[in-house]
């Protein structure tokens, strides 16, 4: 392994290298290839499409809710249907869309942005996707069989407990959460190891793109947050299925324990969505102002401090419970403090735009929309950090307005990134004209839908009500909000038209349509299975802008086996080589085992031993060395 300039490698060689790499890294053909792939790009894309599908379904739920609430005492949906729909809406958007979508974007782009051939642990990556898919299907199988969870996405006990939620509805929720926890933890581990050990030489930690930093922080947060919800949902499932009393005050349990566990996970969860969104904004700002983001170190530290602070403010979801007043003051302070790193980020982006040369492409418009919508949500977030103020607006439509501003604020960079990365994902450009319609309708729709909800909160409208009486006077503003929802739906419709048209007849995308800075633009659109013909050597913080005329690359990696480069954690100095495992369907088998275990557990404790056997068989098969891999490995070690 040494750095050489491409001039040493002739074009003819290059073509031969490409062909051999393609033979080595390609999946098996056909359906088996589709099931067995371990290519992070195929899995990442699949993850994104699945998450987006559930975004549309979650949006459909929201549309039904807005229809129901558009006038007082509407009988379009009864309480039974409405309660399932709002619960499934929240659960979908948080667990099946927002977090998996950010993980999916990370799983697709992080390896490319750090110059790796594949993600670390590619088989586990496939396993994670299948487990996630099982979780998605379980939730909607529940909803479509009138067994959709109906105790809210937060499943407060005792309402979600055995006494007040008989039947299987809350079990569907708890097991859906279990599946997405497993998938989330896997994605987090994949991303951390990829960033730490598979970076291209020269990409020291102080040179990794800001989006990669954001994904790294988010992944660590996932690892620290998930065990809490895992414990909580395990306790809930045990209370419901085997008669424990973790949350039953009559038997010495504690109803508030659930809230502590849930929000100790639940608040970081919001930042698990928001932090990658800030990473996306940084990539978009630098690409569309032709300037690296101002204050790189401050931006990284802002993300890291948000990661820490996010674990110190869960009690602000519980200000109206019996938590002591003095303790609450601490959480007011930490909640307000998180505005400081957020402020640093906003000011640094504005400074970057100020110093740069903005190009008003659709992706950049979404950045502008993000700042406006997100700052609005952030300011109402500071307001509700105040205990006295929160006692008025807590659990009202003011809060609904607040967190939709923050979360849909985070959807703006996601849409921006879609316009930015769609060419890389598909090799086609999206229409800018339709994109501007998408942006305008979405921006107007979000504000028309959610701004009036602040006032509904002051007027006394609580959350999670399936209807309201006319005398409350909430009808007019609810009608406005529902009209706004129509605008949001039409904006997503425009996006879908844009995507479908582009897939059919969009302009072909060059490798680097935006002249952006990071490494994913240094390969073809869409990238080949092996990602890069030659792994580039990184010479500066903006990998493509800072490269010298020689454009050094790594040589010496074998092309006839799946050879990947392992580099050191801090400086990314080439350290060793790693043999990337071949594609296999065995992770799917293990995932089915997990699926059988947890779904059967809803009905009988026998689910555990029986399902565990399937998991065990899958895992053993997964780890079983196959002949061809072994032969390759021997040949590979021989050459090393």
């Amino acid at each position, binding site marked *: 392994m040494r750095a050489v300039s491409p001039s040493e490698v002739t074009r003819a060689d290059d073509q031969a290298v490409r062909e051999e790499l393609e033979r080595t890294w390609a999946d098996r053909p056909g359906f088996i290839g589709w099931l067995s792939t371990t290519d992070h790009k195929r899995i990442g894309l699949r993850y994104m499409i699945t998450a987006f599908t559930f975004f549309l379904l979650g949006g459909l739920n929201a549309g039904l809710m807005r229809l129901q609430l558009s006038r007082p005492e509407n009988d379009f949906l009864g309480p039974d249907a409405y309660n399932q729909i709002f619960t499934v809406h929240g659960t979908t958007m948080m667990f099946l869309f927002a977090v998996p979508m950010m993980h999916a974007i990370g799983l697709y782009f992080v390896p490319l942005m750090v110059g790796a051939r594949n993600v670390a642990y590619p088989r586990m990556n496939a396993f994670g996707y299948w487990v996630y898919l099982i979780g998605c299907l379980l939730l909607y199988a529940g909803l479509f069989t009138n067994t959709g969870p109906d*105790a809210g996405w937060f499943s407060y006990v*005792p309402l979600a407990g055995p006494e007040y939620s008989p039947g299987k509805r809350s079990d569907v929720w708890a097991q859906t959460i279990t599946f997405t926890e497993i998938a989330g933890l896997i994605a987090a581990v994949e991303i951390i190891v990829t960033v730490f050990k598979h970076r291209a030489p020269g990409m020291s930690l102080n040179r990794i793109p800001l989006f990669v930093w954001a994904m790294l922080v988010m992944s660590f947060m996932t690892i620290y947050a998930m065990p809490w919800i895992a414990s909580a949902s395990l306790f809930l499932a045990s209370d419901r299925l085997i008669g424990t009393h973790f949350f039953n005050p009559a038997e010495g349990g504690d109803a508030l324990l659930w809230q502590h566990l849930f929000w100790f996970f639940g608040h970081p969860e919001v930042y698990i969505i928001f932090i990658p969104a800030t990473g996306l904004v940084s990539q978009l700002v630098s690409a569309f102002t032709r300037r690296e983001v101002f204050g790189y170190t401050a931006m990284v530290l802002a993300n890291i401090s948000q990661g820490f602070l996010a674990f110190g403010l869960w009690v602000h979801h519980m200000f*109206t419970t019996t938590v002591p007043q003095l303790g*609450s003051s601490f959480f007011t302070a930490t909640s307000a403090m998180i505005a400081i790193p957020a*402020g*640093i980020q906003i*000011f640094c982006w*504005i400074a970057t735009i100020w110093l740069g040369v903005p190009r008003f492409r659709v992706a950049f418009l979404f950045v502008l929309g993000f700042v406006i919508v997100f700052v609005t949500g952030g300011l109402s977030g500071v307001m509700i950090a105040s205990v*006295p103020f929160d006692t008025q607006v807590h659990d009202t439509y003011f809060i609904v307005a607040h967190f939709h501003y923050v979360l849909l604020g985070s959807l703006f960079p996601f849409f921006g990134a879609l316009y930015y990365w769609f060419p890389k994902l598909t090799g086609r450009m999206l229409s800018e004209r339709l994109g501007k319609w998408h942006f305008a309708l979405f921006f107007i729709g979000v504000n028309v839908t959610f701004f009036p909800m602040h006032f509904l909160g002051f007027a006394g409208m609580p959350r999670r*009500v399936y209807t309201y009486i006319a005398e409350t006077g909430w009808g007019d503003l609810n009608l406005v909000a529902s009209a706004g929802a129509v605008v949001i739906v039409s904006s997503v419709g425009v996006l879908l038209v844009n995507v479908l048209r582009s897939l059919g007849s969009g302009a072909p995308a060059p490798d680097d349509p935006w002249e952006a800075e990071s490494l994913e633009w240094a390969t073809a659109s869409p990238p080949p299975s092996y990602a890069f013909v030659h792994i580039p050597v990184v010479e500066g913080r903006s990998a493509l802008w800072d490269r010298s005329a020689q454009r050094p690359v790594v040589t010496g990696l074998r092309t006839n086996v799946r050879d990947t480069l392992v580099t050191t954690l801090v400086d990314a100095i080439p350290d060793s080589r790693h043999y990337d495992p071949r594609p296999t369907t065995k992770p799917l088998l293990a995932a089915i085992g997990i699926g059988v275990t947890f779904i059967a557990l809803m009905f009988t404790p026998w689910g555990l031993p029986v399902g565990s056997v399937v998991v065990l068989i899958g895992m053993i098969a997964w780890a079983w060395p196959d002949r061809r891999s072994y032969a390759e490995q021997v040949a590979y070690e021989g050459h090393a």
Partner: protein
Amino acid sequence: MTRFVLALQWSGRHSALDPAGPQAARIDSLWQFLWIVSAVVLAAVVAALLYASLHRRRHAEPEQAGAGTRTVVIGAVGLTVVILLVFLGLNFGTGRALTIPPDGAVQVRITGKQWWWEVTYPGNPPSYQVTTANELHVPVGEPVVVELGSSDVIHSFWPPDLVGKRDLIPGETASIWFQADRAGEYRAQCAEYCGHQHAKMALLIVAESRDSFDRWLARQRDSARTPADSLARRGQEVFLASSCVMCHTIRGTPAGSRIGPDLTHLASRRTIAAGTLPNTRGHLAGWILDPQRIKPGSRMPANPLAAGDLEALLAYLETLQ
């Protein structure tokens, strides 16, 4: 601005921004600070963003950051910190003022149930204790301490005109105090999702002069009288012979179950079904015959009474003043 919007929308309706008591008023003044500062900050950020985007579109080359940019960014962060410190100070001041209840307050206990409120005024001697449902009477200008509990799931007590909310959590006891400075009726609606009929779980707070409050409380202490006219007497027999007695209490009769609301003074209440319907004869008849149509999932079953029985029952219930 918000006052203006709300004035257009809710003249005469309840609102956290039209305070009728000292606590809601303090929170409202905190809100005045919050929204003005927020509006200024938002306007400044949007202006900076748009100016930064538009000010030099024709220039071709991005600039290096100078000391000026760094100073502006650090200054903006510093200003953020200052605003947050002021916010924390005001917030703690407001919080302290709201927490400690004054002495000599009226004591009430509210228990949340799926999906109604049991209201109890403790008595001395204990036989003076008053139990009613879904209607809380308080004297104007006097502090009221409400002790909050739940017998099933978590509920939340929230009269926006008077004070912020407080959760009713099974296994825990919480309390909240407030004071109504204006006579009138205030609506409180359950604010914590509590299942099927969370939407139709409201409580009416009636703030009245000390005299009328005392009169009301004294009347509530009485047991129900055996009705004088024969139709109502037959109604009482219908009540006692049907499934009504399985859940309801009417003091002065053998009906003593505490699953549903105490009906001893039902006719004196202004609403039925936890603030869902005005307490009129027609609504009451509809509610008794088929509560599931009005509040699907409600714990009260349908009561298919014969027309004559229903009429007698209504006549009896109307005597429960």
